[in-house]
Structures are given as structure tokens and as C-alpha cells.
């Protein structure tokens, strides 16, 4: 079965320090991977994606993620955290059992990032 795991319920980091939010996946075939962020009282916002090519992808707000096929991971990273990065982060993989314009995503449970001043 296809799935996404985010092993940490919460990640705490001091402002200015690097941050990592972990994600591993299980999917048949080549994965399309995504990170979404949910700020308080807001909907999910797209951060970045990996479709193909360079394993290091850059996204919005200075975030990046590294695709590691052998470890089936897609960890989200940022070199220097900001207090305003505090939010709920979701990793997702596209369902590979369907093709074409079908964009069903399978999400993880989310990781709450808390950046302290």
C-alpha cells in the first residue's frame, strides 16, 4: 500500500538554526513528492515538489528538500529558521495507481514546526 510517514509529531528549533522535517514514503514506481504547509487558520499551501531531475529541490520561503531514492526519503530543510516558519508541515506523494490528470495525493500525518526566538 502506498503511504507517507512523518515520524516526528513536533520539531522544535531555535531561530537562526537549521531545521529538518523528516518524511519517508512507500509507493510503487517513480514517486512525485510534495511538501505543503498550513499556517494557523489558513489552508494548505504548496511549498515544493520533486518530479524528476536534481535530487535537491528548492521551494518557497527558502525551503528545500532532498530526495533520496535508496532511503525513500524526502526531508524538508531550511538553513536558517524564522519564527514565522512555525506551522504544520505535510509531506505527500502522488498516488501512482492512476495516470493522466489525476492528482490524488497521499499525505502524512503532519509535523508541527515550532521555531523559538
Amino acid at each position, binding site marked *: 500500500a502506498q503511504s*507517507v510517514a512523518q515520524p516526528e*509529531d513536533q520539531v522544535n528549533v531555535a531561530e537562526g538554526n537549521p531545521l529538518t522535517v523528516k518524511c519517508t514514503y512507500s509507493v510503487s514506481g517513480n514517486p*512525485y513528492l*510534495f511538501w*505543503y504547509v498550513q499556517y494557523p*487558520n*489558513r*489552508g*494548505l*499551501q*504548496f511549498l515544493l*515538489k520533486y*518530479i524528476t531531475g536534481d535530487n535537491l529541490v528548492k521551494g518557497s520561503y527558502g525551503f528545500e528538500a532532498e530526495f533520496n531514492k535508496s532511503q525513500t526519503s524526502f526531508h524538508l530543510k531550511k538553513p536558517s529558521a524564522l519564527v514565522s516558519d512555525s506551522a504544520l508541515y*505535510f509531506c*505527500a506523494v*502522488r*498516488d501512482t495507481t*492512476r495516470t*493522466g*490528470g*489525476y*492528482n*490524488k*495525493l*497521499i*499525505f*502524512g*500525518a*503532519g509535523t508541527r514546526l515550532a521555531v523559538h526566538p
Partner: protein
Amino acid sequence: EAGVTQFPSHSVIEKGQTVTLRCDPISGHDNLYWYRRVMGKEIKFLLHFVKESKQDESGMPNNRFLAERTGGTYSTLKVQPAELEDSGVYFCASSSLGQGPPGELFFGEGSRLTVL
């Protein structure tokens, strides 16, 4: 351009009552998805419309849930009768059909349902 809008933002009902959630996708987006997040759990797929047709409703929990998409525009998700376990945040998302990056969905702010 207006984003995906959902109504109501929060609904509190008693067990056994009926609630209808509405989603207005981005204009021109043929794909419309409903997802649900129960407290602390993963966001789970409920169903997918292409225009007015249901393409995949494999995630619908049971027959107390009914989704419609009139004329391929807005969609409604009705829960009747509501049970305690239906509480959660219901997200709607849309995307264009066969265009743009795969998997990039545009989400609404969600409708929080509380069943007492």
C-alpha cells in the same frame, strides 16, 4: 484570481443532525478533491470529481456521506446523519485537468466540523 473557497469555516452540530459543506474551486479547474483530517491524523482522500463526474470515491467512509458537483462547478459534501467520528477538518482542493505540474493542488482553508 480567487482561490478555493469553502463554507462554512466551522460547524458545530449534534449527533444525528445533517451538515452540508460547500466548496467553490478555482474557476476553470475541472479536478475537485475532498480530503479530511481527523485530529492529529493524516489528511485522507475522500473523493475526486472531474467536472461533474465522480472519478474516485474510494475514500468515502460510508453511505452517510454524499458528495455532488452540480454542473461541474461548486461541490457539496453532505453528512447525514452525523456521528461523533465525523468530526475533523474537511479540505477541498482543485487543479486543472491535465495541465500544470502533476500533484500541485490548490487547497481551501477547510471546514471544521464538530459533532457533539
